[in-house]
């Protein structure tokens, strides 16, 4: 049987270095089966340290109340909600890569989807912390659930965007987790069948649910993945849309904006991809997976970054234009005085946001820059800083001067406990990611094998050769006429 050509010749191979199926298994299982490196331990211990800092900060907040944070009369939301929106945004790239790109049949997603999905789950876990602890009396957090209660029963307000958030985030987390775990089943079975140690056999045996790779299982698995992708695609758009409703449905100048839903989604994908880049650049280097997460992958993700960065840029400008064009004086004031005016207290953050999110990604129009690892790494950090400031700008610059000048607040800076809490979520995120990279395959083994004959180095070469031979034979045959 000749190899069918599915992919264009101009695309680089997605699996480099003449691999066969067994070699793929070996390469990807190696980091899981080997003892962790010193570098892993260093990273892990730092992460756990940060996590403990977070635990202490949160404990302080629970004991003393949200007064531990520097929030004041006008700025009722500060770092906590900024961080919440930021972390939710980080999560979006994972679902985008695994769901939307699956529907679009993008082969390159296979190299990065597993790590990206894991990132989604950990990021949503981090995001969820903020609204929960921001409640202050966290032991009453179950009030957000609609259950028959002793207060009437007084139901939760189903008309409130904050409750939509509860449903959106919890659904998003559940569906992402299921999607990720269902994808893991075949790979866990691979690890189980390779395991030599007893505890490994037991652990992966339990975790893989008894997966055998039967054709019927694969058929259902494929159907499941496709429908879950179909469900996740509108879900991921809905989640950040709903997060943006927290702001957009309010009457605060600077928040009450109809462009928020698409603009938030684009921003989320933008920051999510930046985080995927940060993680994968480190992962491929540390675990020696450069042949699976190739420059080609980095390149396409940078293209997504420049696209979404530009969408975000257009959204910023549209927002600004409409603030002026709408003749709403409060809206225009919020933009003119609180943001664009560099000498205003938070003017610097607006320009930091613009610089990091709109200007800097434009560098990725150049192929050389897209394929430069150092530039990509630097940019991925810059974009994440920029996107954090985007949320900060939206939240703080909109509310520190409200309709009532007498309540205009003084300059808001976070306390050490607010910073500690944020750092703690980094600790949680990276602790989870380190554990994940130790115990689970960071690349979807089965999916990589699936695209090998289409995009593997050796197979692509063979296909090119075959094709050229056919072409030559064709030309030769036609020359006689």
């Amino acid at each position, binding site marked *: 049987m000749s190899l069918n050509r599915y992919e264009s010749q101009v695309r680089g191979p997605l699996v480099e270095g003449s691999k066969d199926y067994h070699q793929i298994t070996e390469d990807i299982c190696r980091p899981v089966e080997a003892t962790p490196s010193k570098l892993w331990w260093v990273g892990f211990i730092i992460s756990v340290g940060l996590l403990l800092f977070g635990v202490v900060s949160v404990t302080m907040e629970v004991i003393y109340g949200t007064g531990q944070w520097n929030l004041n009369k006008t700025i009722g939301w500060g770092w906590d909600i900024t961080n919440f929106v930021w972390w939710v945004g980080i999560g979006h790239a994972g679902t985008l890569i695994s769901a939307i790109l699956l529907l679009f049949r993008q082969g390159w997603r296979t190299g990065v989807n597993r790590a990206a999905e894991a990132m989604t789950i950990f990021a949503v876990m981090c995001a969820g912390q903020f609204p929960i602890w921001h409640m202050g009396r966290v032991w009453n957090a179950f009030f957000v659930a609609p259950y028959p209660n002793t207060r009437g029963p007084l139901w939760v307000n189903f008309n409130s965007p904050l409750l939509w958030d509860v449903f959106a985030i919890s659904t998003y987390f559940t569906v992402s987790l299921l999607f990720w775990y269902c994808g893991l089943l075949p790979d866990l079975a691979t690890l189980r069948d390779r395991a030599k140690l007893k505890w490994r056999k037991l652990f992966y045996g339990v975790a893989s649910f008894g997966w055998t790779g039967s054709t019927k299982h694969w058929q259902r*698995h494929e159907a499941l993945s496709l429908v879950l992708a179909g469900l996740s695609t509108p879900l991921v758009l809905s989640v950040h849309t709903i997060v943006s409703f927290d702001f957009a449905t309010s009457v605060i100048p600077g928040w009450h904006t109809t462009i928020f839903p698409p603009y938030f989604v684009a921003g989320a994908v933008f920051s999510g991809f930046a985080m995927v880049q940060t993680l994968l650049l480190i992962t491929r280097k540390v675990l020696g997976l450069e042949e699976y997460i190739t420059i080609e992958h980095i390149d396409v993700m940078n293209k997504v970054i420049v696209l979404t960065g530009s969408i975000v840029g257009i959204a910023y400008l549209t927002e600004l234009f409409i603030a002026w064009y709408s003749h709403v004086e409060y809206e225009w004031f919020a933009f003119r005085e609180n943001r664009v005016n560099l000498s205003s207290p938070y003017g610097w953050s607006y320009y930091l946001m613009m610089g990091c999110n709109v200007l800097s990604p434009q560098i990725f129009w150049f192929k050389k820059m897209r394929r430069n690892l150092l530039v990509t790494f630097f940019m991925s950090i810059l974009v994440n800083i920029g996107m954090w400031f985007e949320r900060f700008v939206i939240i703080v610059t909109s509310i520190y001067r409200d309709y009532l000048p007498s309540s205009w607040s003084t300059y808001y800076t976070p306390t050490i406990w607010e910073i500690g809490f944020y750092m703690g979520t980094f600790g949680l995120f990276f602790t989870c990611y380190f554990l994940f990279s130790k115990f689970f395959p960071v690349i979807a083994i089965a999916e990589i094998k699936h695209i090998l004959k289409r995009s593997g180095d050796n197979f692509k070469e063979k296909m090119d050769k075959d094709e050229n031979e056919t072409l030559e034979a064709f030309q030769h045959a036609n020359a006689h006429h």
Partner: protein
Amino acid sequence: MAIKKFITGNFYDEAVLFPAVKKVRRAGYKVHDVYTPFPIHGLDKELGMKDTDLHIAGFIYGITGTTTAISFITWALTLDWQINFGGKPFFSLPAWIPIMFELTVLFSAVGMVFTFCWLCQLAPFVKKDHFNPRSTDDTFVMAIECTDKTNEEEAIAFLKNAGAQDVQVQSRETGWWFGRYDRDTVRFGKKVAAV
């Protein structure tokens, strides 16, 4: 528990596997299953399997979610405990769409995953035998079920001829729990007549 016999053959290339499946089925052998390390599109059709109805189940779960959301919220806010939120009507449907959507997705996803696990008999602590541990690595394993009429020697020779390597006769106990092979739930859509 009855003991069943299987003849298993390993394939290392899907390009060999496909024609082999066709040949073996044409010859009238009962292919119990083919175990592969990754999904191979079209193999299910080649084996004569019916399409899965999992997505229909997903759709039903989805509608259940929508119905649950709309009926519950309607009851809670218009009948059980009416609250005037900014002068809006008690039945304020547009504001409920986000939650209706989320519950649709939630019910559908969770329901489908459970159905998937149930159909495939996958659960923690279930341990299934799949004839060759390398079938989750780089080997495509075809298992032919021996019936009373099967001539083992002949079947082995046939399978080898079709391109299989390391052909073996293996026996397994029926049932699907702990260490047994998969229950025979593979439904064949169209029967292939024996030659």
